[in-house]
């Protein structure tokens, strides 16, 4: 899995994705690819929810309270979501 996720670009949740909070985090379902994904804790859910409202993924992570030391792990999680088309780069900020 690629870890080259650009934290400094603007990202958004694909409009065809539905997110359902669960006790462990959240379930995501993409109606276009018909695939499920999982967010494994509440903080990554907060990050994903913040993507649309922030100029970069890094800013969304900061807004969700991700500690600096954990940024690489969150970048990997976001990278996996990008690869499964759950999130994509926003063309306009």
């Amino acid at each position: 899995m690629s870890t080259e996720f650009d934290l400094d670009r603007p990202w958004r949740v694909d409009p065809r994705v539905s997110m359902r909070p669960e006790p462990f985090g959240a379930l995501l379902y993409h109606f276009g690819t018909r695939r499920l994904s999982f967010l494994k804790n509440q903080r990554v859910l907060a990050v994903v929810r913040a993507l649309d409202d922030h100029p970069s993924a890094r800013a969304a992570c900061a807004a969700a309270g991700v500690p600096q030391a954990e940024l690489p792990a969150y970048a990997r999680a976001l990278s996996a979501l990008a690869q499964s088309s759950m999130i994509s780069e926003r063309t306009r900020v």
Partner: protein
Amino acid sequence: MTLPGKLTDLFQLGLDAPICLTWELTYACNLSCVHCLSSSGRRDPGELTTDECKRVIDTLERMQVFYVNIGGGEPTVRPDFWELVDYATAHQVGVKFSTNGVKITPAVAARLAASDYVDVQISLDGATAAVSDAVRGAGSHATALRAMSRLSDAGFRGFKLSVVMTRHNISQLDAFKAIADRFGAQLRLTRLRPSGRGADVWHDLHPTADQQRSLYDWLVAHGEQVLTGDSFFHLSAYGAALPGLNLCGAGRVVCLIDPVGDVYACPFAIHENFLAGNVRSPGGFESVWRTSSLFASLRKPDTGGACRSCGHYDSCRGGCMAAKFFTGLPLDGPDPECVQGHGSAALAAASPASPVPRPSVDHSHRTVPVTISRRRPPERDCDENPLAGFAASSS
């Protein structure tokens, strides 16, 4: 999807709403497949009405159930089927429906191809007509292929070709894949359960031990290209886990709503022991999912029972609850198709006198014609007594 062990442990405790909800809209069917899991054939007069179905969809929208797997019976024979599909997709509930293809006209295919929110699953149980029609009935293979051809011609990519694996079609795995590829479809293989009418044919149709091994190897080789509905997790005891949730999802992540609104723990468990409630009761489906005592008990962590001492328990988790139940095996012991052979040993050891549970409901077509106009001849010439032919009761 491949899940880390920790998430599987969380799923074991259940979710706020099902991931995979099967909704059988009708018991009516134009076919009489010998292995029908829901013993379908005739419509039940107590079927949910169109309005009642829409209230269920409203509930699913509120619970954020992403999609429902609609089946039957043959769901497309319900006159309001397309109305309900449209209602569901307009309410953010995606639809995947299973069909034998009988109603897939070119116009229907075009309409389906145009929607992101509707997926179709065509059932076919043999790559050749001889193998498939022996299980699903004469002409059914041709009907399914015609439907796939129409979907493909309409530009529908990635619909599903769904196959129940039997002793007679495991040798056709590559041929099924070729059919799916030919129509731009994705192959989905599922396990034969001894549920519904399947109980009557399971002993003759379930794969042999050697066939299970070759199926496992084939699934491993094809990975996530081939869907399985996570139904072969009992095979994971051969070695590496198969893709998917290697866990019985009954009442945890899956359940069934039947045509009369009864909610069962899983589509393969239509029996009163696995009946959690009814969507017509106060609180509806949401209340059944969240408060049923049956579901609460299914969401407790598995103890493993008789399988606990087996080194493969972490892989197979004891297998399928319905397969055990309808072959008369204890639920906390091995699956009847346990790849270590513990299930066949348990089946062999079971007393032939001990009763095997039967499905609670049966809507099979009556295969013996009912004669109403002709008077039955007297059994004996002297038996013109009105009680002739009746067994003597008390008195």
